[in-house]
């Protein structure tokens, strides 16, 4: 039946209409590939920069079926891009290069490339790329099928969406999930999505990833295996295969973190604990500070030191707000610091974007999101989801710590987005990340940004501290972006400006709603590591975020900021 999924209205002629995203800095090749792919009747989108590609991907989740990228890109290592795409979007990625050295090819495969083509590329090689898409879908279908056994027993609540997709938790009747319905589901979900078969992808939300990490740590990283993790995680709808592939990515992520560790520490600059950061701009460390302050683009190098303090260079200006508020207070722990520092509402804007990115990085660092007991969170986690969770659980603070502690110190910074979006693939990818991060290029496409957030923003809003947030609101926003944009410190300035403008519009409405505590603080810290991800900074994202949040706020605003919720803020997990 799954195959039938391919025959949705758009895909009657699969593989015709396959949506391919080609990424290559060589304009000549880009043009040739575009022409060749069109000749194969594929729908082609081209990109000259890796960050643009990520933006596009994040903006339009499920907007592409496969990605083809050159290994040598000026703004980002092709392997990094590969990892990101794998973690966040879980799309098949084909690498290309003029260099066919075995070690390079092996590296590509290790990083998850489903194929490695050598230039000059022949048309016939491109004709066959659809098989990678098809193969993935079949596997997904199998996952769904395997769930059938569980369905009636375990996941009534989850409905069929489970099949790892980021499907929102619809709470459908389990029976709906039957495989035969998958197709229908896909169709529904896709709502005319061109890619005929909607793939069921597991969205590794923060919460889910947290569970995963906890399970891994419990078992012992060396002895870990998908089955054991799965058992420990106790997430009914998750399949062994999902865990296995996530584990693989996680491993890659960790190894990268280790490598970057050194880099990070240096770049990190001022990681500060929240408490201390309050005064200094660094509190938030994140690059966000750059983002946040629109004018201040601080160094942004936040070195997220893994668990604690994030730090950053926030500009003193921005810090003021933050400190006060929210962020700093509740979070005494270093980690929290991040969150706390963000308070600077004005500046936050950028953080929003960053948030996403940080999220991604957080994944690795074990975002404590899960700590929050996200079980109730819908499967489709996006950043937004996390916040919700956070709010609900008081225990967060401790959990956060745990989360961080799990991270090897070295990791801290780097992860963030730059490399390991993986850990939090679901989180960031699911929606916010992609949207946000993409903003850089799509400043105007705020709409898309909104998607992921809606859920969360709502929650966040209500929960966040009022007080702290006012200034924070902006910060929250920025926080998000920060996570993401940390990498783009260099672009911060421009981004900030963009963000500011974007946020400006949003701010007024967000003020109250946004009292987000940035959970992200932790994330941000993580994102700080983005430093090596400068190119990621996408101003566009920032601007998008605000709108994004705005909408979320508008729609989902359930609980107006409730001062009593304040304590939650401490957790620092406010997700804007």
């Amino acid at each position, binding site marked *: 039946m799954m195959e039938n999924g391919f025959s949705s209205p758009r895909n009657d002629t699969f593989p015709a209409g396959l949506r391919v995203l080609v990424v290559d*800095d*060589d*304009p*000549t*090749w880009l*043009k*040739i590939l575009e*022409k*060749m792919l069109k*000749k194969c009747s594929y729908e082609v989108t081209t990109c000259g920069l890796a960050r643009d590609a990520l933006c596009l991907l994040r903006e339009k989740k499920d907007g592409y079926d496969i990605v083809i990228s*050159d290994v*040598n890109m000026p703004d980002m290592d092709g392997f990094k891009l590969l990892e990101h795409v794998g973690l966040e979007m879980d799309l098949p990625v084909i690498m290309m*290069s*003029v*260099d066919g050295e075995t070690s390079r090819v092996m590296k590509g495969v290790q990083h998850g490339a489903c194929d490695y083509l050598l*230039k*000059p590329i*022949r*048309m016939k090689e491109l004709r066959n790329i659809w098989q990678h898409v098809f193969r993935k879908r079949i596997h997904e279908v199998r996952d769904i099928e395997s769930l059938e056994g569980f369905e009636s027993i375990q996941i009534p609540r989850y409905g069929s969406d489970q099949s790892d997709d980021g499907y929102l938790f619809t709470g459908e009747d389990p029976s709906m999930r039957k495989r035969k319905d998958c197709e229908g589901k896909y169709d529904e979900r896709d709502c005319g999505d061109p890619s005929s078969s909607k793939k069921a992808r597991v969205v590794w939300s923060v919460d889910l990833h947290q569970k995963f990490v906890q399970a891994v740590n419990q078992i012992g990283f060396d002895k870990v295996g998908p089955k054991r993790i799965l058992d420990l995680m106790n997430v009914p709808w998750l399949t062994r295969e999902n865990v296995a592939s996530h584990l693989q990515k996680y491993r890659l992520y960790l190894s990268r973190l280790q490598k970057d560790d050194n880099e990070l520490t240096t770049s990190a600059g001022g990681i500060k604990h929240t408490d201390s950061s309050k005064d200094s701009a660094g509190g938030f460390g994140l690059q966000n500070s750059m983002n946040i302050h629109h004018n201040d683009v601080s160094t942004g190098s936040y070195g997220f030191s893994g668990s604690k303090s994030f730090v950053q260079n926030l500009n003193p200006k921005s810090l003021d707000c933050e400190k006060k508020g929210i962020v700093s207070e509740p979070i005494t722990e270093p980690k929290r610091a991040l969150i706390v520092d963000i308070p600077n509402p004005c500046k936050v804007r950028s953080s929003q974007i960053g948030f996403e990115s940080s999220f991604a990085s957080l994944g690795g660092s074990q975002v404590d999101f899960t700590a929050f007991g996200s079980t109730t969170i819908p499967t489709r986690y996006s950043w937004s989801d996390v916040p919700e969770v956070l709010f609900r659980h008081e225990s967060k603070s401790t959990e956060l710590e745990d989360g961080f502690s799990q991270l090897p110190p070295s990791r801290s910074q780097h992860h963030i987005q730059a490399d390991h979006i993986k850990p939090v693939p679901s989180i960031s990818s699911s929606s916010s990340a992609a949207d946000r991060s993409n903003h850089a290029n799509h400043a105007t496409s705020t709409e898309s940004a909104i998607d992921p957030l809606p859920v969360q923003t709502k929650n966040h809003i209500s929960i966040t501290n009022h007080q702290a947030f006012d200034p924070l609101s902006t910060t929250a926003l920025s926080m998000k972006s920060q996570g993401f944009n940390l990498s783009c410190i260099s672009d911060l300035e421009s981004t900030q400006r963009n963000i500011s403008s974007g946020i400006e519009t949003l701010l007024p409405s967000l003020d109250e709603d946004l009292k987000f505590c940035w959970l992200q603080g932790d994330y941000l810290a993580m994102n700080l590591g983005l430093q090596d991800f400068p190119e990621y900074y996408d101003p566009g994202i920032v601007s998008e975020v605000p709108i994004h949040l705005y909408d979320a706020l508008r729609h989902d605003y359930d609980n107006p900021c409730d001062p009593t919720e304040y304590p939650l803020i401490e957790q620092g997990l406010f997700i804007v």
Partner: protein
Amino acid sequence: MDRNHPQHQVLHMRRSLFDQGYIDKEQFIQLEELQDDANPNFAEEIVTLFYTDSARLIQNIEQILVNRPIDFARLDDILHQFKGSSSSIGAKKVKEACTQLREYCSAENAEGCTRTLQLVKQEYAVLKRKLETYFQMVRQVG
């Protein structure tokens, strides 16, 4: 048939480009096969694009070799790009010269690099002239 018949000349030139190793036959033919109503002169467009883009690369290479100390790492990156680019139109001799230059670069042999760069530029210029002539003839033939 008149040996000087334009069509004949075009074919002749094509063959010599291939036979003399200037252009990779398979790649070039593939470019030509991509031509259609939307892009009737696709091969020529690609070649033009290549020359525009690679002119920039060559400039960068020259710049690097002029500075002291020579940034061999960056040079290697650019050469890698240049190689990739050359493969797009099947510029064989240019690519080979580029590979040689890259070897000197790995060896951090500044003098070897400078010398070989001249070779690269030469091949590059020769090919450019030949292709320009070729496409002119193609257009004449219609």
